[in-house]
């Protein structure tokens, strides 16, 4: 039984600077994390060599940039506890920024990329301001409305936004002679973006900044009481999440070569929320798993779009009721359980 020990009198010299216990800026990755990271990266990069075919490769590209947006959502919700059902709208800001820059100012992909990220981050920060004044559920409704508002604004934007038909987007300027109109090269580009994004997500969550976000999520008044500027950090994480969404948006724009307002409305936002919950908003590969499941399950099970959406909905209900951490948490538990079984059977009696 955990019986609290009487406090140690402070007459001893407390200078036992144990390097292991000191709070650090970034946590060192464990060996397991490094190994799984390398495996995932190698698999994703090597995937085209398995000759998956045009359709699967296209779906993979879609999965990848959707996952980028999901990582942003996982940061703001999984870490800081701020849910949004307007995330697609923030993607839309990135996409439309890129498209308008291309059509009106002739700015190409590479220059537009940081600009899209910045623009999305700014807008995300702006619509995040109400979250400081209202509760989480009120804020969700505000994000939902923002989405609807954006669609209305885009549809009525005349020739500037291409109105209801939308805008066409050209190709990505080739780099070192590599043309991104080739599907394989487009895939590599998006996968590199995804891997960088996963790395950024990892660094954020495994650092003191990640702990700060989790503190805000767990107990906001207590976080304030230890000196955390909660308002500042909430807007900050929303902006970082917005930047991720902006990158996803510009990638989507240049992949589809055409964007329209209905891509960024309420439904897409709801599906993003659905995907991140399904995959798991707190674990490292949760968002990726969520994107993969939603994109590939209908393919594998040959479901038509309607049945697959019903499946998503049911899957979400099941996850919330039984597996609140998402599929990734379920997989992790399963691995741990298998690991324990394994150890139990070990005749050498490794604990």
């Amino acid at each position, binding site marked *: 039984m955990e019986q609290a020990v009487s406090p140690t009198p402070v007459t001893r010299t407390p200078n036992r600077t144990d390097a292991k216990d000191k709070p650090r800026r970034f946590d060192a990755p464990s060996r397991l994390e490094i190994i799984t990271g390398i495996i995932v990266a190698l698999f994703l990069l090597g995937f085209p060599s398995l000759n998956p075919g045009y359709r699967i490769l296209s779906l993979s590209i879609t999965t990848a940039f959707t996952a980028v947006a999901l990582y942003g959502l996982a940061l703001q919700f999984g870490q800081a506890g701020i849910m949004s059902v307007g995330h697609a709208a923030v993607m839309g800001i990135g996409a439309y920024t890129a498209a308008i820059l291309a059509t009106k100012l002739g700015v190409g992909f590479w220059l537009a990329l940081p600009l899209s990220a910045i623009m999305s981050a700014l807008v995300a920060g702006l619509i995040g301001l109400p979250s400081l004044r209202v509760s989480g*559920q009120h804020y969700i409704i505000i994000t939902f409305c923002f989405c609807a508002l954006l669609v209305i604004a885009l549809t009525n934007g005349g020739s500037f936004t291409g109105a209801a038909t939308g805008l066409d987007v050209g190709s990505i300027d080739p780099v070192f002679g590599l043309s991104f109109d080739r599907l394989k090269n487009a895939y590599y580009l998006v996968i590199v973006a995804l891997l960088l994004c996963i790395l950024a997500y990892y660094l954020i969550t495994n650092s003191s900044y990640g702990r700060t976000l989790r503190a805000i999520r767990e107990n906001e*008044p207590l976080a304030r009481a230890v000196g955390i500027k909660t308002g500042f950090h909430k807007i900050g994480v929303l902006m970082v999440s917005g930047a991720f969404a902006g990158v996803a948006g510009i990638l989507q724009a240049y992949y589809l070569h055409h964007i329209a307002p209905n891509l960024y409305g309420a439904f897409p936002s709801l599906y993003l929320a659905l995907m991140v919950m399904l995959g798991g908003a707190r674990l490292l590969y949760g968002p990726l798993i969520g994107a993969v499941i939603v994109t590939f399950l209908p393919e594998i099970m040959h479901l038509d779009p309607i049945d697959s959406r019903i499946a*998503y*909905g*049911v899957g979400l*209900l099941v996850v919330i009721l039984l597996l609140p951490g998402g599929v990734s948490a379920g997989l992790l538990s399963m691995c741990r359980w298998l690991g324990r079984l394994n150890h139990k059977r070990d005749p050498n009696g490794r604990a």
Partner: protein
Amino acid sequence: MEIFIQQLINSLSVASVTILIGIGITLIFGLAGIVNFAHGEFLMVGGMVTWFLVNAGLNFFVALFGAMILVGALGFAAERGLFRFTLDRPMNGFIMSIGLSVILQHVVIRIFNEVQKTIPDPVGQVWVVGGVNIIAMRAIVVAITAIVVALTYFGISRSRYGVALRASIADQDTAALMGIPVRKYVTGVFIYGSVLAGLGGALMIALFPITPFTGSVVIIRGFAVSLIGGLGNVGGAVVGGLLLGLVDGLSAGYGSPEWTDAYSLVLMIAVLIIRPQGLLGWNTGTARQLKNSQ
């Protein structure tokens, strides 16, 4: 003048549907903190059921009751099977309601199809009141809604259950300590809100075509109305609904129609930011959470 009165009745009939689901949303959110995204789909299902029954030969008003009963049962099932488990973590309930709304939309598409549904005007008359031609059905919609609102309002303010309900909305823990079976009220309010949504759907299809996606259009207005009025406040939902109806009417008459929806959204965001408890808001349970989180 004639046109003005007709416009008034038109706007009121649209506002009526919004008020009906707004009441449901405000009571459910106010009492249990549950944001039910699928509430719009409840309305849509009510409309679809009405369409189906009318096409099967039933009288409209019989079909209307059928819709109310069926959607009420749906709400009961949702509360018992899903939302009941998330009362202590409302965010999960909200996310589940997203899943539920997706399921309902697509099941309806499966059973019927995506094409919009209409029914012929059930009454098909034009009344002449004081020299003004009014489409009877629209006036009936407004009248039915007014009766329901009055019943709800008096039920909540006068009856024993109403007082207990308002107490639970104001402070759930204290109400429970005083012996009020709060959980039962949550279920009851859910059923009531769903029945109203079913009614709203039936009335709606009597006036306008509906599609499986009508729910998501309507839910935004439902949220707007209950948030503007103040959660848990039935009178507030009515005021909110009338306000939005006014904004719509003005916008259709004088503004640009494409921005109509935008005005109500902006209005709601403004209210949420300036006065989060709503125009008529009380110190509801959720408002208390709000305060505690500051």
